[in-house]
């Protein structure tokens, strides 16, 4: 009788351990996520996921390709470059705040700052750079900040996204918070980010064609036809929340930065293609 109990306990423990370890690390999460989408879209080359809906819908792709001769964000990128290179009142420029003078670094953002214990997005770093140099911060969602961010992204085109979650409990907590946000249903319509972009990519939701999770942040900032201008990733987060009748959170809030951290980590290895266009 005792032997039987011992065997049962051991069996239970053996079954429970793999369950507890499943998805225990961000890298395991990412691998499982990539595998999930590869199985969902076996004919789509992995690198094509950065093109979102254009990788999944031929009609949308043709429209998009026809726009690429004269992309609507070109002027904004040129303005962004000019702003990036124009000295602040103290004579310094944005280049003084970033590694490699801010050129070709988009793929490393967002990162977790283990001293400040927070996720640093590119837009946050741009505004902190301004404040450190005695300038007023820019508004977060569009306009100058989107143009500067777009210019910086353009200098990283083709570089593989390389987000790191350091061996630090706070960094892991930030990643987990972002993951929880992504999978939690919100709003009166009771949708999570995952309801659309994990469970239903490749399908229509009213007039919108849903893109998959992997590759999504690779093309930001984006010029949306709906906006008629460039916008940041947090502008898109707020729009998605609003669509499901959930109160949007402030751009660059801790919640949205953690969400960006998780989401961008899922795209590790895919190339930066931003800025880009979306309907």
């Amino acid at each position, binding site marked *: 009788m005792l032997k039987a109990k011992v065997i049962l306990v051991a069996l239970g423990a053996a079954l429970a351990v793999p369950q507890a370890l*499943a*998805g225990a690390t961000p890298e395991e999460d990412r691998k*499982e996520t990539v595998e999930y989408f590869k199985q969902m879209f076996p004919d789509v080359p992995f690198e094509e996921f950065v093109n979102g809906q254009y990788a999944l819908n031929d009609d949308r792709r043709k429209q998009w390709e026809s726009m690429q001769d004269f992309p609507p964000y070109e002027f904004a990128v040129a303005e962004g470059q000019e702003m990036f290179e124009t000295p602040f009142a103290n004579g310094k420029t944005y280049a003084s705040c970033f590694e490699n003078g801010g050129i070709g670094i988009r793929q490393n953002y967002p990162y977790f700052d283990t001293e400040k214990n927070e996720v640093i997005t590119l837009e946050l770093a741009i505004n902190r750079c301004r404040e450190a140099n005695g300038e007023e911060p820019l508004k977060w969602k569009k306009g100058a900040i989107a143009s500067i961010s777009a210019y910086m992204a353009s200098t990283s085109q083709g570089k593989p996204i390389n987000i790191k979650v350091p061996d630090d409990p706070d960094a892991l907590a930030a990643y987990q918070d972002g993951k929880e946000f992504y999978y939690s249903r*919100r*709003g*009166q319509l009771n949708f999570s980010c995952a309801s659309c972009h*994990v*469970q239903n990519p490749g399908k229509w939701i009213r007039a919108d064609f849903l893109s998959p999770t992997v590759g999504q942040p690779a093309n930001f900032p984006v010029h949306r036809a709906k906006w008629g201008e460039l916008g940041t990733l947090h502008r898109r987060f707020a729009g998605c929340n609003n669509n499901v009748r959930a109160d949007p959170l402030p751009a660059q809030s801790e919640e949205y930065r953690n969400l960006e951290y998780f989401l961008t980590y899922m795209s590790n290895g895919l190339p930066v293609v931003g800025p880009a266009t979306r309907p």
Partner: protein
Amino acid sequence: MKKPLLAIGISLALSVPLAAQAGPKEDFQEVYSKAQSTHQDAGTFQWTITGDRLKAAKSAADNGDYEKAIAMADEALKLAEESVAQRKQQKEAWRHVAIGN
């Protein structure tokens, strides 16, 4: 000697029901403040429509239309309660659908 005491007693007895009887303004304020605080309890799970109803309730009350104000505040309270329930439910439910959990 007894007359003043009787008068005080009667006036007290008459004033109790008057004090207990709240008007529509007080009824509105009670349900509105409950709806507001429940909406706050939803934290990052607040619904846009709850805020819309709260604004409509406030606007109706400012215009003296307490019947509409109370109806809007009642709706806001129900919506806020649903959003709080969603918040509580999602605390664990997200894990069941997340890849890697």
